[in-house]
Protein backbone atom coordinates (compact mmCIF):
# COMPACT_ATOMS: atom_id res chain seq x y z
CA UNK A 1 0.00 0.00 0.00
CA UNK A 2 1.44 3.26 -1.05
CA UNK A 3 1.09 6.37 1.03
CA UNK A 4 1.25 8.52 -2.05
CA UNK A 5 -2.50 8.78 -2.11
CA UNK A 6 -2.89 10.56 1.20
CA UNK A 7 0.04 12.91 0.74
CA UNK A 8 -2.01 15.53 -1.14
CA UNK A 9 -4.23 15.74 1.93
CA UNK A 10 -1.67 15.30 4.66
CA UNK A 11 0.93 17.75 3.39
CA UNK A 12 -1.41 20.74 3.24
CA UNK A 13 -3.03 19.81 6.52
CA UNK A 14 0.33 19.43 8.23
CA UNK A 15 1.53 22.64 6.64
CA UNK A 16 -1.50 24.49 7.90
CA UNK A 17 -0.86 23.26 11.41
CA UNK A 18 2.82 24.16 11.26
CA UNK A 19 1.91 27.59 9.94
CA UNK A 20 -0.44 28.07 12.86
CA UNK A 21 2.34 27.28 15.25
CA UNK A 22 4.77 29.54 13.41
CA UNK A 23 2.57 32.57 13.81
CA UNK A 24 5.36 34.69 15.16
CA UNK A 25 7.96 33.66 12.62
CA UNK A 26 7.34 35.13 9.17
CA UNK A 27 10.55 33.84 7.64
CA UNK A 28 9.90 30.32 8.82
CA UNK A 29 6.42 30.48 7.42
CA UNK A 30 7.71 31.50 4.04
CA UNK A 31 10.14 28.62 3.93
CA UNK A 32 7.48 26.12 4.99
CA UNK A 33 5.03 27.44 2.44
CA UNK A 34 7.57 27.26 -0.34
CA UNK A 35 8.73 23.76 0.43
CA UNK A 36 5.37 22.23 1.05
CA UNK A 37 3.65 24.01 -1.79
CA UNK A 38 6.12 22.59 -4.25
CA UNK A 39 6.08 19.18 -2.66
CA UNK A 40 2.30 19.02 -2.99
CA UNK A 41 2.63 19.77 -6.67
CA UNK A 42 5.26 17.07 -7.04
CA UNK A 43 3.19 14.58 -5.06
CA UNK A 44 0.15 15.31 -7.18
CA UNK A 45 2.02 14.86 -10.42
CA UNK A 46 3.65 11.66 -9.24
CA UNK A 47 0.28 10.41 -8.11
CA UNK A 48 -1.32 11.21 -11.44
CA UNK A 49 1.37 9.38 -13.38
CA UNK A 50 1.15 6.46 -11.04
CA UNK A 51 -2.62 6.27 -11.48
CA UNK A 52 -2.21 6.58 -15.20
CA UNK A 53 0.21 3.69 -15.28
CA UNK A 54 -1.19 1.37 -12.66
CA UNK A 55 -4.89 2.10 -12.58
CA UNK A 56 -7.06 3.22 -9.72
CA UNK A 57 -5.39 3.49 -6.32
CA UNK A 58 -7.08 3.06 -3.00
CA UNK A 59 -5.87 3.67 0.53
CA UNK A 60 -7.52 2.52 3.70
CA UNK A 61 -7.04 5.20 6.29
CA UNK A 62 -6.18 3.68 9.64
CA UNK A 63 -5.95 0.27 8.06
CA UNK A 64 -9.69 -0.35 8.36
CA UNK A 65 -10.84 -2.24 5.37
CA UNK A 66 -13.58 -0.96 3.11
CA UNK A 67 -16.46 -0.43 3.57
CA UNK A 68 -15.94 -0.04 7.30
CA UNK A 69 -13.17 2.48 7.48
CA UNK A 70 -12.68 5.56 5.41
CA UNK A 71 -11.11 4.87 2.06
CA UNK A 72 -9.22 7.28 -0.12
CA UNK A 73 -9.52 6.53 -3.81
CA UNK A 74 -7.53 8.05 -6.59
CA UNK A 75 -8.71 7.58 -10.12
CA UNK A 76 -7.68 9.63 -13.11
CA UNK A 77 -10.41 12.18 -12.48
CA UNK A 78 -9.15 12.80 -8.97
CA UNK A 79 -5.59 12.89 -10.20
CA UNK A 80 -6.36 15.48 -12.83
CA UNK A 81 -8.28 17.62 -10.38
CA UNK A 82 -5.44 17.39 -7.87
CA UNK A 83 -2.83 18.56 -10.32
CA UNK A 84 -5.05 21.37 -11.49
CA UNK A 85 -5.69 22.38 -7.90
CA UNK A 86 -2.03 22.46 -7.08
CA UNK A 87 -1.09 24.50 -10.14
CA UNK A 88 -3.72 27.11 -9.41
CA UNK A 89 -3.07 27.10 -5.69
CA UNK A 90 0.63 27.62 -6.19
CA UNK A 91 0.02 30.62 -8.44
CA UNK A 92 -2.49 32.06 -6.01
CA UNK A 93 -0.08 31.46 -3.16
CA UNK A 94 2.83 33.19 -4.79
CA UNK A 95 0.50 36.00 -5.79
CA UNK A 96 -0.70 36.36 -2.24
CA UNK A 97 2.71 37.46 -1.04
CA UNK A 98 2.53 40.51 -3.21
CA UNK A 99 -1.14 41.04 -2.57
CA UNK A 100 -1.27 40.91 1.21
CA UNK A 101 1.19 43.39 2.50
CA UNK A 102 0.71 42.96 6.22
CA UNK A 103 2.40 40.28 8.22
CA UNK A 104 -0.68 39.79 10.39
CA UNK A 105 -2.82 39.20 7.34
CA UNK A 106 -0.40 36.65 5.98
CA UNK A 107 -0.16 34.88 9.32
CA UNK A 108 -3.87 34.19 9.10
CA UNK A 109 -4.25 33.87 5.38
CA UNK A 110 -1.77 31.12 4.75
CA UNK A 111 -2.91 28.58 7.35
CA UNK A 112 -6.46 29.05 6.18
CA UNK A 113 -5.33 28.69 2.61
CA UNK A 114 -3.65 25.39 3.34
CA UNK A 115 -6.67 24.16 5.27
CA UNK A 116 -8.75 24.98 2.23
CA UNK A 117 -6.30 23.17 0.02
CA UNK A 118 -6.40 20.12 2.28
CA UNK A 119 -10.19 20.15 2.22
CA UNK A 120 -10.27 20.47 -1.55
CA UNK A 121 -7.81 17.65 -2.09
CA UNK A 122 -9.66 15.58 0.45
CA UNK A 123 -12.90 16.10 -1.43
CA UNK A 124 -11.20 14.93 -4.60
CA UNK A 125 -9.78 11.82 -3.03
CA UNK A 126 -12.29 10.60 -0.54
CA UNK A 127 -14.31 7.51 -1.25
CA UNK A 128 -16.73 7.98 1.59
CA UNK A 129 -19.86 10.03 1.34
CA UNK A 130 -19.78 11.37 4.88
CA UNK A 131 -16.10 12.12 4.66
CA UNK A 132 -16.98 14.11 1.57
CA UNK A 133 -19.30 16.16 3.76
CA UNK A 134 -16.51 16.79 6.23
CA UNK A 135 -14.08 17.74 3.49
CA UNK A 136 -16.63 20.11 2.04
CA UNK A 137 -17.04 21.70 5.41
CA UNK A 138 -13.28 22.13 5.80
CA UNK A 139 -13.16 23.77 2.40
CA UNK A 140 -16.23 25.91 2.90
CA UNK A 141 -15.33 27.04 6.38
CA UNK A 142 -11.92 28.12 5.12
CA UNK A 143 -13.57 29.95 2.26
CA UNK A 144 -15.93 31.73 4.61
CA UNK A 145 -13.02 32.73 6.80
CA UNK A 146 -10.78 33.82 3.93
CA UNK A 147 -13.59 35.73 2.36
CA UNK A 148 -14.39 37.97 5.29
CA UNK A 149 -10.86 38.12 6.60
CA UNK A 150 -9.97 41.53 5.24
CA UNK A 151 -13.25 42.96 6.44
CA UNK A 152 -14.26 45.09 3.46
CA UNK A 153 -17.96 45.87 3.39
CA UNK A 154 -18.55 43.99 0.18
CA UNK A 155 -16.78 40.97 1.61
CA UNK A 156 -18.87 40.97 4.76
CA UNK A 157 -22.02 41.18 2.73
CA UNK A 158 -20.99 38.48 0.28
CA UNK A 159 -19.74 36.28 3.09
CA UNK A 160 -23.00 36.53 4.93
CA UNK A 161 -24.97 35.60 1.85
CA UNK A 162 -22.70 32.67 1.08
CA UNK A 163 -22.68 31.26 4.57
CA UNK A 164 -26.46 31.46 4.91
CA UNK A 165 -26.92 29.48 1.72
CA UNK A 166 -24.01 27.20 2.51
CA UNK A 167 -25.29 26.20 5.94
CA UNK A 168 -28.69 25.37 4.56
CA UNK A 169 -27.21 23.07 1.97
CA UNK A 170 -24.91 21.53 4.55
CA UNK A 171 -28.03 20.54 6.47
CA UNK A 172 -29.41 19.10 3.26
CA UNK A 173 -26.23 17.14 2.74
CA UNK A 174 -26.64 15.64 6.19
CA UNK A 175 -30.23 14.77 5.40
CA UNK A 176 -29.19 13.12 2.16
CA UNK A 177 -26.36 11.22 3.85
CA UNK A 178 -28.75 10.06 6.56
CA UNK A 179 -31.21 8.91 3.95
CA UNK A 180 -28.62 7.02 2.00
CA UNK A 181 -27.26 5.34 5.13
CA UNK A 182 -30.74 4.31 6.17
CA UNK A 183 -31.38 3.00 2.70
CA UNK A 184 -28.20 1.12 1.98
CA UNK A 185 -26.59 0.78 5.37
CA UNK A 186 -23.19 1.93 4.28
CA UNK A 187 -21.31 5.11 3.58
CA UNK A 188 -18.56 3.93 1.31
CA UNK A 189 -19.31 5.16 -2.18
CA UNK A 190 -18.25 2.00 -3.95
CA UNK A 191 -20.24 -0.10 -1.53
CA UNK A 192 -23.19 2.24 -1.98
CA UNK A 193 -22.99 1.75 -5.70
CA UNK A 194 -23.22 -2.01 -5.22
CA UNK A 195 -26.02 -1.83 -2.70
CA UNK A 196 -28.12 0.69 -4.54
CA UNK A 197 -27.85 -0.82 -7.98
CA UNK A 198 -30.69 -3.37 -7.52
CA UNK A 199 -33.02 -0.78 -6.00
CA UNK A 200 -32.32 2.14 -8.24
CA UNK A 201 -35.97 2.70 -9.07
CA UNK A 202 -36.90 3.35 -5.48
CA UNK A 203 -38.22 6.91 -5.20
CA UNK A 204 -36.00 7.57 -2.22
CA UNK A 205 -32.94 7.11 -4.40
CA UNK A 206 -34.16 9.76 -6.79
CA UNK A 207 -34.96 12.09 -3.93
CA UNK A 208 -31.46 11.64 -2.53
CA UNK A 209 -29.89 12.11 -5.93
CA UNK A 210 -31.78 15.34 -6.38
CA UNK A 211 -30.69 16.55 -2.97
CA UNK A 212 -27.11 15.82 -3.92
CA UNK A 213 -27.54 17.82 -7.10
CA UNK A 214 -28.77 20.69 -4.96
CA UNK A 215 -25.94 20.41 -2.48
CA UNK A 216 -23.22 20.12 -5.10
CA UNK A 217 -24.99 22.53 -7.40
CA UNK A 218 -24.59 25.23 -4.79
CA UNK A 219 -20.85 24.70 -4.67
CA UNK A 220 -20.72 24.59 -8.45
CA UNK A 221 -22.97 27.64 -8.82
CA UNK A 222 -25.42 25.86 -11.05
CA UNK A 223 -28.25 28.12 -12.10
CA UNK A 224 -30.73 28.55 -9.27
CA UNK A 225 -27.88 28.16 -6.80
CA UNK A 226 -25.59 30.69 -8.38
CA UNK A 227 -26.74 33.74 -6.43
CA UNK A 228 -23.76 33.76 -4.14
CA UNK A 229 -21.16 33.57 -6.84
CA UNK A 230 -21.11 37.02 -8.42
CA UNK A 231 -21.01 38.70 -5.02
CA UNK A 232 -18.47 36.37 -3.54
CA UNK A 233 -16.10 36.13 -6.47
CA UNK A 234 -16.04 39.83 -7.01
CA UNK A 235 -15.62 40.70 -3.36
CA UNK A 236 -13.13 38.06 -2.27
CA UNK A 237 -9.43 38.85 -1.95
CA UNK A 238 -7.97 38.29 -5.38
CA UNK A 239 -6.02 35.06 -4.72
CA UNK A 240 -9.19 33.60 -3.26
CA UNK A 241 -11.26 34.75 -6.23
CA UNK A 242 -8.80 32.95 -8.45
CA UNK A 243 -9.02 29.83 -6.33
CA UNK A 244 -12.79 30.00 -6.19
CA UNK A 245 -13.25 30.29 -9.91
CA UNK A 246 -10.31 28.15 -10.80
CA UNK A 247 -10.85 25.12 -8.66
CA UNK A 248 -13.37 25.43 -5.85
CA UNK A 249 -16.51 25.66 -7.94
CA UNK A 250 -15.18 22.68 -9.84
CA UNK A 251 -15.29 20.68 -6.63
CA UNK A 252 -19.06 20.85 -6.93
CA UNK A 253 -18.90 19.65 -10.51
CA UNK A 254 -16.48 16.94 -9.49
CA UNK A 255 -18.89 15.72 -6.85
CA UNK A 256 -21.77 15.66 -9.31
CA UNK A 257 -19.67 13.64 -11.73
CA UNK A 258 -18.53 11.29 -9.00
CA UNK A 259 -21.99 10.69 -7.64
CA UNK A 260 -23.62 10.21 -10.99
CA UNK A 261 -20.88 8.05 -12.41
CA UNK A 262 -20.65 5.81 -9.40
CA UNK A 263 -23.58 5.71 -7.02
CA UNK A 264 -26.43 6.72 -9.27
CA UNK A 265 -25.09 5.35 -12.54
CA UNK A 266 -28.46 4.01 -13.48
CA UNK A 267 -30.17 7.32 -12.86
CA UNK A 268 -28.10 9.09 -15.51
CA UNK A 269 -30.89 8.89 -18.03
CA UNK A 270 -33.49 9.98 -15.52
CA UNK A 271 -31.64 13.15 -14.64
CA UNK A 272 -30.09 13.89 -18.00
CA UNK A 273 -32.80 16.21 -19.25
CA UNK A 274 -32.78 18.08 -15.99
CA UNK A 275 -29.03 18.54 -15.88
CA UNK A 276 -28.85 19.63 -19.50
CA UNK A 277 -31.67 22.11 -19.04
CA UNK A 278 -30.05 23.57 -15.97
CA UNK A 279 -26.73 23.68 -17.81
CA UNK A 280 -28.22 25.66 -20.67
CA UNK A 281 -29.97 28.08 -18.36
CA UNK A 282 -26.81 28.48 -16.31
CA UNK A 283 -24.78 29.24 -19.42
CA UNK A 284 -27.24 31.76 -20.65
CA UNK A 285 -27.93 33.52 -17.37
CA UNK A 286 -24.24 33.77 -16.61
CA UNK A 287 -23.46 35.26 -19.99
CA UNK A 288 -26.32 37.73 -19.71
CA UNK A 289 -25.04 38.82 -16.35
CA UNK A 290 -21.54 39.21 -17.67
CA UNK A 291 -22.65 41.34 -20.58
CA UNK A 292 -24.37 43.68 -18.16
CA UNK A 293 -21.37 44.24 -15.91
CA UNK A 294 -19.19 47.28 -15.68
CA UNK A 295 -16.92 45.85 -13.02
CA UNK A 296 -14.26 43.52 -14.31
CA UNK A 297 -14.22 41.16 -11.35
CA UNK A 298 -17.96 40.88 -11.37
CA UNK A 299 -17.88 40.30 -15.09
CA UNK A 300 -15.43 37.47 -14.63
CA UNK A 301 -17.57 36.07 -11.85
CA UNK A 302 -20.64 35.92 -14.05
CA UNK A 303 -18.51 34.45 -16.75
CA UNK A 304 -17.61 31.65 -14.35
CA UNK A 305 -21.30 30.92 -13.88
CA UNK A 306 -21.69 30.74 -17.61
CA UNK A 307 -18.68 28.47 -18.02
CA UNK A 308 -19.92 26.15 -15.31
CA UNK A 309 -22.96 25.77 -17.51
CA UNK A 310 -20.71 24.57 -20.32
CA UNK A 311 -19.01 22.09 -18.06
CA UNK A 312 -22.29 20.77 -16.74
CA UNK A 313 -23.48 20.43 -20.29
CA UNK A 314 -20.53 18.19 -21.05
CA UNK A 315 -21.27 16.18 -17.95
CA UNK A 316 -24.95 16.05 -18.79
CA UNK A 317 -24.33 14.35 -22.11
CA UNK A 318 -23.25 11.31 -20.13
CA UNK A 319 -21.11 10.09 -22.96
CA UNK A 320 -17.39 9.41 -22.88
CA UNK A 321 -16.83 12.23 -25.34
CA UNK A 322 -18.91 14.66 -23.33
CA UNK A 323 -17.23 13.74 -20.08
CA UNK A 324 -13.80 14.02 -21.62
CA UNK A 325 -14.70 17.40 -23.04
CA UNK A 326 -16.04 18.52 -19.68
CA UNK A 327 -12.84 17.47 -17.97
CA UNK A 328 -10.77 19.28 -20.56
CA UNK A 329 -13.00 22.27 -20.02
CA UNK A 330 -12.49 22.10 -16.29
CA UNK A 331 -8.74 22.12 -16.74
CA UNK A 332 -8.56 24.92 -19.26
CA UNK A 333 -11.17 27.04 -17.61
CA UNK A 334 -9.45 26.65 -14.27
CA UNK A 335 -6.16 27.90 -15.62
CA UNK A 336 -7.66 30.66 -17.72
CA UNK A 337 -10.10 32.02 -15.20
CA UNK A 338 -7.64 32.09 -12.37
CA UNK A 339 -5.16 33.97 -14.53
CA UNK A 340 -7.86 36.47 -15.44
CA UNK A 341 -8.87 36.95 -11.86
CA UNK A 342 -5.30 37.47 -10.80
CA UNK A 343 -4.95 40.00 -13.60
CA UNK A 344 -8.05 41.79 -12.34
CA UNK A 345 -6.42 41.88 -8.92
CA UNK A 346 -3.48 43.72 -10.45
CA UNK A 347 -5.92 46.34 -11.69
CA UNK A 348 -7.38 46.62 -8.24
CA UNK A 349 -3.92 47.11 -6.75
CA UNK A 350 -3.20 49.84 -9.26
CA UNK A 351 -6.21 52.04 -8.73
CA UNK A 352 -8.14 50.60 -5.83
CA UNK A 353 -11.10 49.81 -8.02
CA UNK A 354 -12.17 47.15 -10.43
CA UNK A 355 -14.65 49.29 -12.31
CA UNK A 356 -13.66 49.15 -15.95
CA UNK A 357 -14.29 52.85 -16.39
CA UNK A 358 -11.56 53.57 -13.84
CA UNK A 359 -9.00 51.91 -16.03
CA UNK A 360 -7.57 52.40 -19.44
CA UNK A 361 -4.51 52.67 -21.56
CA UNK A 362 -2.90 49.57 -20.13
CA UNK A 363 -1.36 48.93 -23.51
CA UNK A 364 1.03 51.81 -22.91
CA UNK A 365 1.26 51.47 -19.17
CA UNK A 366 2.06 47.80 -19.14
CA UNK A 367 2.33 45.87 -22.38
CA UNK A 368 3.04 42.73 -20.39
CA UNK A 369 -0.25 43.02 -18.59
CA UNK A 370 -2.04 43.70 -21.84
CA UNK A 371 -0.57 40.60 -23.43
CA UNK A 372 -1.40 38.41 -20.47
CA UNK A 373 -4.91 39.70 -20.32
CA UNK A 374 -5.28 39.24 -24.04
CA UNK A 375 -4.16 35.64 -23.84
CA UNK A 376 -6.75 35.06 -21.16
CA UNK A 377 -9.41 36.70 -23.26
CA UNK A 378 -8.76 34.75 -26.40
CA UNK A 379 -8.49 31.55 -24.41
CA UNK A 380 -11.75 32.00 -22.64
CA UNK A 381 -13.34 33.13 -25.85
CA UNK A 382 -12.28 29.89 -27.42
CA UNK A 383 -9.98 31.26 -30.07
CA UNK A 384 -7.35 28.92 -31.47
CA UNK A 385 -4.60 28.12 -30.84
CA UNK A 386 -5.29 28.55 -27.13
CA UNK A 387 -6.51 25.78 -24.89
CA UNK A 388 -9.87 27.50 -24.82
CA UNK A 389 -10.49 26.61 -28.40
CA UNK A 390 -10.08 22.93 -27.85
CA UNK A 391 -12.27 22.99 -24.80
CA UNK A 392 -15.18 24.44 -26.73
CA UNK A 393 -14.47 22.39 -29.81
CA UNK A 394 -14.51 19.08 -27.99
CA UNK A 395 -17.63 20.00 -26.13
CA UNK A 396 -19.53 20.91 -29.24
CA UNK A 397 -18.28 17.86 -31.04
CA UNK A 398 -19.43 15.68 -28.19
CA UNK A 399 -22.81 17.37 -28.26
CA UNK A 400 -23.25 16.82 -31.96
CA UNK A 401 -22.05 13.24 -31.71
CA UNK A 402 -24.71 12.59 -29.13
CA UNK A 403 -27.31 14.52 -31.15
CA UNK A 404 -27.94 17.08 -28.41
CA UNK A 405 -28.71 19.88 -30.80
CA UNK A 406 -30.48 22.35 -28.55
CA UNK A 407 -27.69 22.57 -25.96
CA UNK A 408 -25.19 22.97 -28.77
CA UNK A 409 -27.14 25.82 -30.28
CA UNK A 410 -27.37 27.52 -26.90
CA UNK A 411 -23.66 26.99 -26.44
CA UNK A 412 -22.99 28.68 -29.76
CA UNK A 413 -25.09 31.68 -28.91
CA UNK A 414 -23.56 32.01 -25.51
CA UNK A 415 -20.05 31.76 -26.86
CA UNK A 416 -20.73 34.75 -29.09
CA UNK A 417 -21.86 36.67 -26.05
CA UNK A 418 -18.77 35.49 -24.23
CA UNK A 419 -16.54 36.92 -26.89
CA UNK A 420 -18.45 40.14 -26.89
CA UNK A 421 -18.14 40.86 -23.20
CA UNK A 422 -14.57 39.67 -22.99
CA UNK A 423 -13.34 41.76 -25.85
CA UNK A 424 -15.26 44.76 -24.77
CA UNK A 425 -13.68 44.58 -21.37
CA UNK A 426 -10.22 44.08 -22.80
CA UNK A 427 -10.68 46.98 -25.11
CA UNK A 428 -11.92 49.21 -22.32
CA UNK A 429 -9.11 48.35 -19.98
CA UNK A 430 -6.21 48.09 -22.34
CA UNK A 431 -6.97 50.23 -25.34
CA UNK A 432 -9.15 53.13 -24.32
CA UNK A 433 -7.56 56.39 -23.31
CA UNK A 434 -5.91 56.91 -19.94
CA UNK A 435 -8.42 57.24 -17.10
CA UNK A 436 -9.11 60.31 -15.05
CA UNK A 437 -7.07 60.94 -11.96
CA UNK A 438 -3.49 60.21 -11.13
CA UNK A 439 -1.18 58.74 -13.72
CA UNK A 440 -0.95 55.00 -13.59
CA UNK A 441 1.90 53.29 -11.89
CA UNK A 442 3.29 50.17 -13.44
CA UNK A 443 1.97 46.97 -11.91
CA UNK A 444 4.52 45.18 -9.77
CA UNK A 445 6.44 42.35 -11.32
CA UNK A 446 5.82 40.26 -8.23
CA UNK A 447 2.17 40.13 -9.13
CA UNK A 448 2.70 39.77 -12.85
CA UNK A 449 4.85 36.65 -12.69
CA UNK A 450 2.26 34.17 -11.42
CA UNK A 451 -0.31 35.59 -13.79
CA UNK A 452 2.12 35.31 -16.65
CA UNK A 453 2.87 31.70 -15.82
CA UNK A 454 -0.82 30.85 -15.85
CA UNK A 455 -1.26 32.67 -19.15
CA UNK A 456 1.60 30.66 -20.62
CA UNK A 457 -0.16 27.54 -19.40
CA UNK A 458 -3.28 28.60 -21.30
CA UNK A 459 -1.24 28.60 -24.48
CA UNK A 460 0.54 25.38 -23.62
CA UNK A 461 -2.82 23.73 -23.14
CA UNK A 462 -3.68 24.72 -26.66
CA UNK A 463 -0.44 23.42 -28.10
CA UNK A 464 -0.47 20.29 -26.01
CA UNK A 465 -4.17 19.69 -26.43
CA UNK A 466 -3.55 16.26 -27.80
CA UNK A 467 -1.88 14.64 -24.77
CA UNK A 468 -4.17 16.43 -22.35
CA UNK A 469 -7.27 15.34 -24.16
CA UNK A 470 -5.81 11.87 -24.28
CA UNK A 471 -5.63 11.98 -20.53
CA UNK A 472 -9.15 13.30 -20.12
CA UNK A 473 -10.36 10.69 -22.57
CA UNK A 474 -8.81 7.98 -20.45
CA UNK A 475 -10.32 9.51 -17.33
CA UNK A 476 -13.73 9.63 -18.94
CA UNK A 477 -13.50 6.03 -20.04
CA UNK A 478 -12.56 5.09 -16.51
CA UNK A 479 -15.55 7.00 -15.19
CA UNK A 480 -17.88 5.10 -17.43
CA UNK A 481 -16.71 1.77 -16.19
CA UNK A 482 -17.48 2.18 -12.49
CA UNK A 483 -16.71 -1.48 -11.86
CA UNK A 484 -13.03 -0.55 -12.02
CA UNK A 485 -13.51 1.88 -9.18
CA UNK A 486 -15.58 -0.57 -7.17
CA UNK A 487 -13.05 -3.31 -7.64
CA UNK A 488 -10.20 -1.07 -6.59
CA UNK A 489 -12.02 -0.17 -3.39
CA UNK A 490 -13.76 -3.36 -2.42
CA UNK A 491 -11.16 -5.76 -3.68
CA UNK A 492 -12.15 -8.72 -5.78
CA UNK A 493 -15.74 -9.40 -4.91
Amino acid at each position, binding site marked *: *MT*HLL*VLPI*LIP*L*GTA*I*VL*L*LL*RANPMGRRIVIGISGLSILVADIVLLTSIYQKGIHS*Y*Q*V*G*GWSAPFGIVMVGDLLSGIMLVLASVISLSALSYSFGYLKKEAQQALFHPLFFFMWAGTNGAFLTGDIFNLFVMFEVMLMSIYALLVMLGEKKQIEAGFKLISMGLFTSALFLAAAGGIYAFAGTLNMADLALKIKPHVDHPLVSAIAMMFIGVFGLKAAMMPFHFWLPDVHSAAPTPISAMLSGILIKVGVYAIIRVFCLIFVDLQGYFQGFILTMACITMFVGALGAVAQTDIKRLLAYSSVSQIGYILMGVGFFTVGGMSAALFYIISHGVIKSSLFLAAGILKKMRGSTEMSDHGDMINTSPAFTTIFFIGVISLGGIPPSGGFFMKFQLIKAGLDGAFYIPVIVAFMVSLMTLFYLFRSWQKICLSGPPQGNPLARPSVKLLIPVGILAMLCLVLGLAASPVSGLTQAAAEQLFSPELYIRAVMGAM
Partner: protein
Amino acid sequence: MTSLIFKSITKTVSPILMIFSLYLLLRGHQMPGGGFIAGLMTSAGLVLIYLAYGCDFFDWHKRSRFFYYLFSGGLALSFLTGLAGLFIGGTFLKSGVAHVEMPFIHESWEFASAGIFDIGVYLVVCGVCVSLMTLLGEEE
Protein backbone atom coordinates in the same frame (compact mmCIF):
# COMPACT_ATOMS: atom_id res chain seq x y z
CA MET B 1 -25.46 37.66 36.91
CA THR B 2 -22.48 38.27 39.09
CA SER B 3 -24.39 37.64 42.26
CA LEU B 4 -22.69 36.17 45.27
CA ILE B 5 -24.63 32.94 45.04
CA PHE B 6 -23.67 32.46 41.47
CA LYS B 7 -20.05 33.10 42.29
CA SER B 8 -19.98 30.64 45.10
CA ILE B 9 -21.78 28.00 43.07
CA THR B 10 -19.26 28.53 40.33
CA LYS B 11 -16.46 28.11 42.82
CA THR B 12 -17.64 24.66 43.73
CA VAL B 13 -19.06 23.51 40.45
CA SER B 14 -16.38 24.45 38.01
CA PRO B 15 -13.53 22.46 39.61
CA ILE B 16 -15.84 19.46 39.74
CA LEU B 17 -16.66 19.98 36.10
CA MET B 18 -12.97 20.11 35.24
CA ILE B 19 -12.10 16.96 37.07
CA PHE B 20 -15.11 15.15 35.75
CA SER B 21 -14.17 16.23 32.24
CA LEU B 22 -10.72 14.73 32.66
CA TYR B 23 -12.35 11.50 33.74
CA LEU B 24 -14.62 11.58 30.72
CA LEU B 25 -11.61 12.17 28.51
CA LEU B 26 -9.60 9.27 29.81
CA ARG B 27 -12.44 6.79 29.97
CA GLY B 28 -13.92 7.87 26.67
CA HIS B 29 -12.87 4.73 24.93
CA GLN B 30 -14.79 2.53 27.29
CA MET B 31 -17.62 4.64 28.67
CA PRO B 32 -19.63 7.54 27.34
CA GLY B 33 -17.26 10.41 26.98
CA GLY B 34 -14.29 11.25 24.87
CA GLY B 35 -12.44 14.27 23.64
CA PHE B 36 -15.39 16.28 22.45
CA ILE B 37 -17.46 15.91 25.53
CA ALA B 38 -14.56 16.44 27.84
CA GLY B 39 -13.45 19.49 25.95
CA LEU B 40 -16.90 20.96 25.97
CA MET B 41 -17.28 20.24 29.65
CA THR B 42 -14.01 21.94 30.51
CA SER B 43 -15.06 24.87 28.42
CA ALA B 44 -18.40 24.98 30.19
CA GLY B 45 -16.55 25.18 33.48
CA LEU B 46 -14.39 28.00 32.19
CA VAL B 47 -17.44 29.73 30.80
CA LEU B 48 -19.03 29.59 34.20
CA ILE B 49 -15.98 31.25 35.67
CA TYR B 50 -16.09 33.82 32.95
CA LEU B 51 -19.71 34.60 33.59
CA ALA B 52 -19.27 34.80 37.30
CA TYR B 53 -16.09 36.81 37.50
CA GLY B 54 -15.90 38.56 34.18
CA CYS B 55 -12.73 39.07 32.29
CA ASP B 56 -10.52 39.72 35.23
CA PHE B 57 -10.31 36.37 36.90
CA PHE B 58 -7.86 34.79 34.54
CA ASP B 59 -6.77 37.87 32.64
CA TRP B 60 -8.45 36.24 29.69
CA HIS B 61 -7.41 38.50 26.95
CA LYS B 62 -3.80 38.48 27.94
CA ARG B 63 -4.02 34.76 27.51
CA SER B 64 -5.62 34.78 24.10
CA ARG B 65 -2.30 33.71 22.64
CA PHE B 66 -2.22 30.80 25.06
CA PHE B 67 -5.59 29.57 23.82
CA TYR B 68 -4.49 30.05 20.25
CA TYR B 69 -1.51 27.80 20.82
CA LEU B 70 -3.73 25.44 22.80
CA PHE B 71 -5.89 24.59 19.86
CA SER B 72 -3.06 24.71 17.35
CA GLY B 73 -1.11 22.37 19.61
CA GLY B 74 -4.08 20.05 19.96
CA LEU B 75 -4.43 19.92 16.24
CA ALA B 76 -0.74 19.19 15.91
CA LEU B 77 -0.96 16.46 18.53
CA SER B 78 -3.78 14.68 16.76
CA PHE B 79 -2.06 15.04 13.44
CA LEU B 80 1.21 13.70 14.79
CA THR B 81 -0.60 10.71 16.29
CA GLY B 82 -1.97 10.00 12.87
CA LEU B 83 1.45 10.45 11.29
CA ALA B 84 2.97 8.12 13.84
CA GLY B 85 0.72 5.39 12.51
CA LEU B 86 2.15 6.10 9.11
CA PHE B 87 5.72 5.87 10.30
CA ILE B 88 5.39 2.71 12.36
CA GLY B 89 4.54 0.89 9.21
CA GLY B 90 0.81 1.13 9.06
CA THR B 91 -1.27 3.75 7.42
CA PHE B 92 -2.24 7.22 8.45
CA LEU B 93 -4.21 7.08 11.72
CA LYS B 94 -3.31 3.44 12.29
CA SER B 95 -3.94 2.93 15.96
CA GLY B 96 -2.16 0.73 18.45
CA VAL B 97 -3.26 -0.57 21.82
CA ALA B 98 -1.18 -1.18 24.90
CA HIS B 99 -2.33 -2.69 28.19
CA VAL B 100 -0.79 -1.13 31.28
CA GLU B 101 -1.24 -2.26 34.86
CA MET B 102 -2.25 0.75 36.88
CA PRO B 103 -0.12 1.07 40.06
CA PHE B 104 -2.67 1.76 42.81
CA ILE B 105 -6.07 0.63 41.66
CA HIS B 106 -4.82 -2.71 40.38
CA GLU B 107 -6.64 -2.57 37.15
CA SER B 108 -5.39 -3.20 33.71
CA TRP B 109 -6.05 -0.09 31.63
CA GLU B 110 -5.81 -0.12 27.93
CA PHE B 111 -3.96 2.74 26.40
CA ALA B 112 -4.77 3.19 22.76
CA SER B 113 -2.95 5.60 20.54
CA ALA B 114 -6.46 6.72 19.79
CA GLY B 115 -6.44 8.05 23.32
CA ILE B 116 -3.67 10.47 22.45
CA PHE B 117 -5.64 11.43 19.38
CA ASP B 118 -8.58 12.10 21.66
CA ILE B 119 -6.46 14.30 23.88
CA GLY B 120 -5.66 16.37 20.81
CA VAL B 121 -9.37 16.66 20.14
CA TYR B 122 -9.90 17.71 23.72
CA LEU B 123 -7.29 20.43 23.48
CA VAL B 124 -8.73 21.78 20.28
CA VAL B 125 -12.25 21.94 21.63
CA CYS B 126 -11.09 23.64 24.82
CA GLY B 127 -8.88 26.09 23.01
CA VAL B 128 -11.47 27.04 20.45
CA CYS B 129 -14.35 27.44 22.86
CA VAL B 130 -12.40 29.61 25.21
CA SER B 131 -10.91 31.59 22.36
CA LEU B 132 -14.40 32.35 21.13
CA MET B 133 -15.42 33.47 24.54
CA THR B 134 -12.45 35.73 25.02
CA LEU B 135 -12.71 37.14 21.54
CA LEU B 136 -16.32 38.06 22.02
CA GLY B 137 -15.65 39.35 25.50
CA GLU B 138 -12.68 41.42 24.44
CA GLU B 139 -14.69 43.25 21.83
CA GLU B 140 -16.06 45.52 24.53
